[in-house]
């Protein structure tokens, strides 16, 4: 059962999100209006073939815009997921650390050292497998 009081905390966040969205769309709309008004005496806004191609330093783009990329980017993403999940596990531990230090000091300290130790072994493995080397 979700506590409704806890959810009410997020009402200002929702309103802030609404204001932020309104701000972003509003300024974009304003720029259209102001731009039309400020440039009313000029002939602008018409598109030409050359103007609408992707800007690649003035060269005519060759081939598809979404070309193949180095596999290293995917490797970084996978490493990120591994370590990010570990950080997620660290959060609850970090919150209770201080209060558990009163009665179960060795338990909370030792469990964290074990966790970080196992993680460190995994880190050394990734390092030895040259997962962090950008040049292959």
């Amino acid at each position, binding site marked *: 059962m979700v506590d409704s009081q806890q959810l*009410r*905390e*997020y*009402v*200002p*966040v929702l*309103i*802030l*999100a609404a*204001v*932020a969205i309104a*701000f*972003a*769309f509003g*300024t*974009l709309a304003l*720029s*259209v209006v*102001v*731009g039309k008004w400020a*440039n009313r005496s000029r002939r*602008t806004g018409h*598109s030409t*073939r050359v*103007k*609408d191609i*992707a*800007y*690649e*330093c003035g060269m005519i*783009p060759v081939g598809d*815009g*979404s070309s193949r*990329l180095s596999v*290293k*980017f995917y490797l*970084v*993403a996978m*490493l*990120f997921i591994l*370590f*990010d999940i570990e*950080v997620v596990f*660290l*959060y609850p531990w*970090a*919150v*209770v650390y*201080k209060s558990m*230090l009163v009665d179960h000091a060795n338990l909370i*300290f030792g469990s*964290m*050292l074990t966790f*970080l130790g196992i*993680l460190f072994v995994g*880190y050394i493995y990734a*390092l030895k497998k040259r997962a*962090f080397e*950008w*040049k292959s």
Partner: protein
Amino acid sequence: MIIGEFFRGLFLMIWRVATDQPEAKADLLAVFPPSARPVISAVLTVSPIIGIFATLFALTTLLERKGLGRIQNRLGPNRVGPFGILQPVADGLKMLTKEDIIPRSADALVHFLAPVVLAVPTILAFAVLPYGRNLVPVDMDAGILFFFAVGASTELAIFMAGWSSRNKYSLLGAMRAIAQMISYEIPLIISSVSVIMIAGSLSPVEIIAQQGRYLAGGFVPHWFVLTPWGLAGFIMFLIASLAESNRSPFDIPEAESELIAGHLTEYSGFKYALFFMAEYFGMFAVSGLAVTLFLGGWHAPFEFLEIVPSYVWFFAKLMGLVCLFIWVRGTVPRLRVDQLLNFAWKFMLPLSLLNLVVAAVWHFTAAWEFPGAGLGRWLLGAVMIGVPYVWLGRALSGSKKITQRTYRFAD
């Protein structure tokens, strides 16, 4: 009658905010019917955030251009208004009147949505920061977690921008940006976990309350930056936040000399301005979090200075960090991609994990009660983080000797 009440409430609200009093909105809210009060209250809370930070953004762009100009031995903008102080206004008007060009090959909807998707989370991140003694927009229990959650969603917008432009440089810039941001997010979060551990709470308000004491007769604040793990964590947090906000020396995603402008290449007009603004907003937000976590939030550096309104201290510290960012931008050259990722994974990650252990030991040894225990804890912490720092730095830089470069043909 009701208009008089309204203005009285408005005046009281401004007066109470200015003088650091609690319940600033109470009188103004009493004018409205009870059912509308939560919404009105939220609007009153959030609209100053956007107003204040938009003003700060305008001032910072000018400060940055002026400061960089001085660093590079030139004057910076000085034509618009006295000393160029109206330059942000001119920039804003220029952005508003520029034509919005969408490339023919681009995915128009995603291309349009990317700046909006970027602007919204960066503004949302301001919701949980305490700006003063009684100035917290949303006092959330899991505030730090919320901050990192919305902060991480900006990566999506950058990828949307890079991918939808169908431009090789944009896509490469976006991929680099994501690789960099996710790599530095881990040290950023882990260095903040050490503070959460010591404070025992995810709430920014509680974390600041823990730093509200003064030692040595009110002249040494009890800020977390003044501990061995806090100093190391603060420096790592700053480096990681430089990378998170894509600022020099970590500006390879938009390295203009190699990638045109990265994911910003195909943006013009006010969409570009929104990207630019979101970048600065992100910098403010992450600096504000650094102030909250390590620099004591809105607390004064000395006890007798607590009579100065608390928000003054918060914004003074925030602007101090922003000036540091500008200084770094003017001083340090850009990294290469491999150097950047090596630095994140081989140096920052092990050191931030170790810093967590140092923080745990720091608190674990708080029970020590022999003479000189305080100094002993300090030295233990400093050695635990300092020795690996030197060792890791030596090991990673290899056997390369960095000496003064000699130019044979340029004499």
